[in-house]
């Protein structure tokens, strides 16, 4: 499994005012908080899985979190750049 993106770079440039703002958002803090929440809620998740099994949703509940983690870990390298007449927005997962 890849390492999840640790930093989110967000560039907002307004060409009209020659203003260029760059945000470096520490995603690793979010992952630490989410991991803590996950550990705290894990008994409830196990309970929800057991309740969902008779309805055929047990596998879905059980595999949902690992698959979400897999998606988050593979966000590394994703870039989005949107330019409009007076504004440029650039998002990059690093």
């Amino acid at each position, binding site marked *: 499994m890849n390492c999840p993106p640790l930093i989110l770079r967000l560039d907002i440039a307004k060409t009209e005012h020659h203003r260029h703002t760059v945000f470096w958002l520490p995603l690793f803090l979010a992952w630490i908080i989410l991991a803590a929440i996950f550990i705290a809620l894990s008994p409830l998740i196990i309970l929800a899985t057991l309740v969902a099994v008779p309805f055929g*949703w047990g596998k879905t509940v059980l595999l949902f979190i690992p698959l979400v983690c897999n998606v988050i870990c593979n*966000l590394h390298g994703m870039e989005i750049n949107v330019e409009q007449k007076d504004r440029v927005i650039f998002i990059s997962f690093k």
Partner: protein
Amino acid sequence: MSDNQKRILDMLAEGKISAEEAQKLLAAIGSGGDEAKSAPPRSPKYLRVVIQPNPDAPENEDVKRVNVRVPVALIRAGIKFTSLIPAEASEQVNEALKEKGIDFDVRNLKPEDLEELIAALHDLEVDVQNGQEKVHVYVE
């Protein structure tokens, strides 16, 4: 034995080339073939979607330029989500796809097909032009 090797041996038998020359030619063919075999196919890493204003269209300031780079690994991870779709929901998804003109059964999407699909992405290049915008999708 390949055709080239046979041809070299024929030329040697006919006396057109010396034994030394034949050896050199055979070695050259051998090393070339080994290189071709040993070179692993480069797997695509990113899917790039570029939306630009159509150069043939009249200038419109509202048209956006979009450039998105999506890691192929993310697509792979996203497709794995299909395994979570319950059977009843799969039928609804299939019906919704059919309404959009896509005759595809999401239950048939298997991990082994996925690898083949990703390998085939290497040859993918899509160019779409409409009135205002030009969309280019390719892998890199």
